[in-house]
């Protein structure tokens, strides 16, 4: 297997700025005012639709539910599209290969912390978990740091961060990020201290492996923008239905369920709610964008912050499909330790916040 040795194998020749440039960048610039106008006009538009066009009573349950859905659905989708565009653009400058090289041979707790932090920004798709895991381990990234990255990447990503920020404010966004990084750091550090390198499937270390050069993303503004638009189409295309479903459930609960309803199940006084939320959340899989509308409902209906955070982390950070994939590289013993340690960390975060808040 030969690899192109001269640096960036993926780069496309940069075209001279011309009509092509405006074709890829110009329409985005033109779309921005339309986006802002739509975003600002959503609330009156939703009220007009629910109370004028459909003739529902303001203040009635059905009327409020429909107005909530008509406002919140497009709002979250607009925000998501905007955020994913920006983030995808920034991520064309960051590659997993570069992250890997930064982490290689970095032993000790700093390696875990750096891995957990890099996990936030590095583009990651759970379908790449196996090759990424092997790529990390084989160039000498310590097992513990690899796990820190693997926990942090899906759990604390930029899309989750911006959605939390725009829907709940900076305090919850910051708490989620900080505790997510803490869970990733700690669980990776513990796994590292347990010295479980021998519990990998043998082929992981035996297979001939030659690290590829950092091919990076595309280069040149038009190509980067094209990839960013592609990212929006990919992510929004994948999650819009879950977001709308989540908001529909939310709208229904918003209109029909009393605000204190969740207090009994997910309130602070229900001590069993944190482990239960994690137990329910682990097998479920949704990415951060899909789970946030549900989180919004839970919080609005009286669920405790810690319990809700724990639920969200369990859904995004651990999942049955990902475990099945990871089983290909690790023995059941290591997989069990991984799931156990991360789940325990999440439960701890849940209790901590229920206690503090």
């Amino acid at each position, binding site marked *: *297997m*030969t*690899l*192109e040795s001269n640096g960036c*194998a*993926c780069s*496309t*020749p940069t075209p001279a700025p011309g009509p092509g440039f405006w074709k890829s960048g110009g329409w985005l610039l033109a779309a921005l005012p339309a986006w802002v106008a739509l975003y600002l006009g959503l609330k009156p538009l939703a009220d007009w639709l629910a109370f004028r066009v459909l003739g529902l009573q303001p203040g009635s349950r059905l009327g409020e539910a429909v107005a909530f859905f008509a406002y919140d659905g497009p709002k979250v989708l607009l925000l998501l599209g905007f955020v994913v565009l920006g983030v995808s653009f920034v991520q064309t400058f960051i*590659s*997993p*290969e570069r992250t*890997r090289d930064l982490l290689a041979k970095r032993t000790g707790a700093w390696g875990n912390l750096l891995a957990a932090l890099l996990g936030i920004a590095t*583009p990651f*798709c759970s*379908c*790449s978990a*196996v*090759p*990424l895991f*092997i*790529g*990390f381990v084989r160039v000498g990234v310590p097992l513990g740091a690899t796990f820190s990255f693997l926990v942090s990447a899906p759990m604390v990503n930029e899309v989750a961060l911006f959605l939390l920020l725009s829907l709940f404010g900076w305090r919850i966004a910051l708490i989620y990020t900080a505790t997510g990084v803490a869970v990733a750091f700690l669980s990776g550090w513990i796994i590292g201290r347990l010295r479980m390198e021998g519990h990998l499937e043998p*082929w992981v270390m035996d*297979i*001939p*492996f*030659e*690290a*590829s050069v950092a*091919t990076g*993303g*595309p280069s040149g503004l038009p*190509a980067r923008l*094209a*990839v960013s638009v*592609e990212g929006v189409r*990919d992510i929004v295309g*994948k999650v819009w239905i879950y977001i709308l479903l989540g908001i529909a459930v939310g709208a229904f609960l918003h209109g029909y369920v009393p605000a204190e309803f969740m207090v009994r199940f997910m309130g602070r006084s229900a001590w069993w709610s944190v482990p239960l939320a994690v137990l329910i959340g682990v097998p479920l899989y949704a990415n951060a964008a899909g789970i946030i509308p549900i989180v919004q409902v839970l919080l609005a209906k009286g669920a405790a912050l810690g319990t809700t955070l724990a639920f969200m982390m369990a859904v995004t950070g651990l999942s049955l499909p990902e475990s099945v994939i990871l089983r*290909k590289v690790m023995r059941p013993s290591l997989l069990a330790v991984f799931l156990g340690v991360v789940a325990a960390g999440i439960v701890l975060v849940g209790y901590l916040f229920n206690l503090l808040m």
Partner: protein
Amino acid sequence: MKIEVLGSGCSKCKLLAERTEEAAKGLGLAFTLVKVTEYPDIVVRGVMTTPGLVVDGILKCQGHVPTVKAIQDFLR
């Protein structure tokens, strides 16, 4: 020309395979397109993020799906 698309079968891998086929046909090339889906076969090529595109044994790109035009530049 031997073209390989590396990836375990996620939506991006399928998209890359479709675009690559379109790109190669657009150039009028004689080619075979192979989808490499088993993890060991992917890893052994040094690829860390899927999907990856390998043309005649040379890794051209990984981790994202280029446009048809960009793929044609890889194939030329």
